[in-house]
């Protein structure tokens, strides 16, 4: 456990009913002060459960949870601090705006519950929080008359007003329409940086996760699969699942032929490939991963060196303005390539596809 961690979750497990599959198993994560930390994964992977365990809305069956110097939960010692005594704020997926209170009353509630400050100061703080989320003029509005985006902002104001050590966000953007979601995502990003708040964020949307997060914990079936910054997770995934979950990708069976200091040579159905980095020993079967946007498309006449370069015929193309998605055939194999529209090919053209060795990865076969 890193001592610098603000939140540390240690070997936490949760099972909702006897005999059922574990919702969360052997979960260990550290969240640093000021970090935007995201729990990412498909629905049912245990990310929301992990968040609720941190919040104290569910109790783990095993493990330890610590926030700064305070032990929140320790199964071995029988410690379990109740939700309302944890210095943690939370924004819910449904926003959970209390319909019987005005906007201002909603935001005042945490301060009143905690018994902090005098009345005038509370109101000032609540107004400041509303101002931050751009709802200053809505404070007396009945909360039942708010749009989805406005409810979202009230929920955010309610979470930041109490200045908790940690803010938990449970899929806060999933109920918004696309345009509003993009806008709120940007606002959220700015807000977190301005406040310097430590955030644990739950989402199933990989774009959202990559744009917002300092680090991402990728989860699957209750287990942590990968943990790292967005770039690492996207470019150097550790599993086929991780590769596919974070973006469109090719996976081809490949056999490792030689391993040298600079890279390896693998054999695929469309030819041999050089790959940077060494991750495996010769002779084993693995998966070759390359993302469509990393496949370079060049005219047949290209004079590039022939390593990792293959002749192919464009089978179809999909033009979408900024980008073009090609489907190309190399012998019996199909490969997708995503390029900008600066140079374009037509269906039936014969081209050369270049697969950069730095962007080709080898992944273990087991969970293909």
């Amino acid at each position: 456990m890193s001592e610098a961690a603000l939140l540390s979750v240690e070997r936490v497990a949760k099972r909702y009913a006897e005999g059922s599959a574990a919702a969360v198993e052997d979960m260990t994560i550290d969240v640093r002060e000021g970090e935007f930390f995201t729990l990412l994964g498909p629905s049912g992977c245990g990310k929301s459960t992990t968040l609720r365990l941190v919040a104290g809305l569910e109790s783990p069956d095993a493990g330890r949870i610590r926030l700064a110097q305070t032990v929140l939960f320790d199964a071995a010692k029988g410690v379990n601090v109740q939700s309302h005594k944890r210095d943690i704020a939370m924004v819910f997926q449904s926003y959970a705006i209390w319909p019987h209170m005005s906007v201002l009353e909603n935001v005042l509630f945490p301060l009143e519950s905690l018994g902090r400050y005098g009345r005038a100061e509370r109101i000032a703080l609540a107004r400041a929080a509303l101002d931050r989320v751009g709802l200053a003029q809505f404070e007396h509005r009945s909360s039942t008359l708010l749009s989805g985006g406005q409810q979202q902002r009230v929920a955010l104001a309610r979470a930041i007003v109490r200045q908790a050590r940690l803010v938990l966000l449970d899929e806060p953007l999933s109920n918004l329409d696309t345009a509003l979601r993009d806008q709120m995502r940007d606002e959220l990003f700015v807000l977190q940086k301005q406040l310097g708040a430590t955030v644990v964020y739950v989402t199933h949307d990989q774009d959202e996760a990559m744009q917002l997060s300092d680090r991402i914990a990728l989860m699957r079936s209750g287990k942590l699969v990968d943990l790292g910054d967005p770039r690492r997770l996207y470019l150097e995934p550790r599993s086929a699942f991780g590769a596919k979950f974070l973006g469109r990708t090719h996976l081809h069976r490949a056999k490792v032929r030689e391993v040298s200091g600079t890279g390896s040579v693998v054999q695929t159905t469309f030819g041999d490939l050089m790959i940077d980095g060494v991750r495996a020993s010769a002779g084993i079967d693995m998966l070759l991963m390359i993302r469509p946007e990393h496949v370079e498309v060049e005219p047949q006449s290209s004079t590039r060196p022939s390593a990792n370069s293959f002749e192919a015929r464009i089978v179809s193309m999909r033009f979408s303005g900024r980008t073009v998605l090609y489907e190309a055939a190399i012998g019996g194999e199909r490969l997708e390539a995503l390029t900008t529209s600066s140079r374009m090919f037509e269906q039936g053209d014969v081209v050369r596809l270049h697969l950069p060795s730095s962007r080709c990865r080898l992944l273990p076969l087991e969970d293909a």
Partner: protein
Amino acid sequence: MKASAPATRRAGEWAAGGALLLVLGYLVVLPLLILVVAAFRPHGFPFEPGVTFAHVTNAFLDPGLPRLISGTLTFAIGASALAVMLGLLLAFLLERTDMPWRGVWRAAVVLPMAMPPMLLGIAWTLLLGPRIGVFNVMLSEWTGVRGPFLNIYSLSGMIFVEGLALAPSAYLMLAAPVGNIGSAMQEAAAMSAAGPLRRWLKIDLPLLTPAIAACALVMFVAGLVVFDIPAIIGVPSKIIVLSTHIYGLAHNPPESLPRYGEIGALSFLFIGLLVGLVALYQRLGARAQRYVAITGRGWRSSPVPLRAWKYPAVAFVILYFLLTVAAPFAALLWTSLLPYQARISPDLIGLLTVSNHLAFFGNARAISATIHSLEVALLAASAVAVLAFLVAAYVNRSRGPGRRIIDLLAAAPLAIPGVMMGMALIFVYLTFDWLPVYGTIWIIVLAFAAEYLPFGSRAMNGVMSQLHPELEEAARMSGAAPSRVLRKILLPLFLPAAMAVWLWVFAHALRALSAPVMLQGRDNIVLSTLLWGYWNSGEPTIAAAIGIWLIVILTLATIGWRLASRRGGAAHV
């Protein structure tokens, strides 16, 4: 140190579940058990020695039984069908069309609930009696033919009045689902070139099927157990249903002693019915809610234009109020102003007197009955509101044990006739004399608490399932302790619904007859039993005067209930 928090929470849930099971067992299971035991005792007293199967064979080999059952079924099916049809038509007209004065009709549509079924029955015997009924008299005068045209003392007469009595409840159950059908589906259908009628038949009705089925089932069960209307209309023409048969076995047995054993044996019939119906009802209820959940987020669709149909529509709604409120009330008012029962006729205006009403206010017994009625209604309403809240909270919000059983037990009294429940309670509290409720208002409160719990827990379940658990969790994550969450979040959000349940039970407890008439004793004469007493002892005019004042109280309660449920959203039957 091993007592970790999860374990404590689990222990708390077990304790809560156990406590609820005990309370429901006491209210619901114990009385039924007593009835079953009584069926096997020589004189039908559960605690006498000896065992006999004679009552069971008597009850079930009775050659009259098949006719009794088929009569009861015909009555219940007929009345529930009429109620559902009226309710559905009203819901469609008031929730989905551009009918004139919709706001007024919607506000007034539950007023018939203020008319106790017993009084509705009495009133209709005055309106449609074969010889004195106003309609028959008028028809006779017009046609010159003597003789009953429409005879209220018939199976169809009973079905007609019971259908009218149940119609407001059917409307309340159907109004929300009918009004909530999402616009997306409507518009999709319109884009498929479907006309309004076709849309209604092909899209709305199939979508509404679960809600209609659940409503029909509740109405059917209500028809199976109802006592007052069959007692007032059926008995004089010897059309006996199960509830009046049970009352007869207790009060007019062939021999001098009531046939408790046979009543106990007949309880098997209801227990069997109950198990099947409650299971079916719960399945239908769950499905109906799923449909509502899907469509709940949609926009309200634009009203169906009635055009020339608005005249028959308005005529229909006016007729509904005429049949359920205006005409019966007028008949009762007329009777209450007479010295003895007589037909409604201008010739008799000279006889009118307010002495029955004056007697009501000057009668110490009537005053004490009014106070008892209010006490009973107040206590029963509070008990049901609290218990239903606890049941709904436990069933919806905990992971404790026995949630399904608790849910079922809370729904079970739906299928137990009040007359039978009353008898069972007499046995229970005669035996448990350490709890001195026998012959007091408390025994009626207990009967009502069980009788109205299914309504209460259903309404509370509805509200609870609409309230997102995150509303409570957000409060906890705002640093609010559990007591503060309860005080500041749950209670304010539940109060309107709890108020609506409270007032509904209050109104029904004021008007109910079947349980109090069985439990009538030393200090617990309530308005409905007093009224029944006057009616049966040949003072129909005094009974009518009491009825008028009972309707006045009920109207106030009904208006209050309507206002509370407006604020509380969907707290429907």
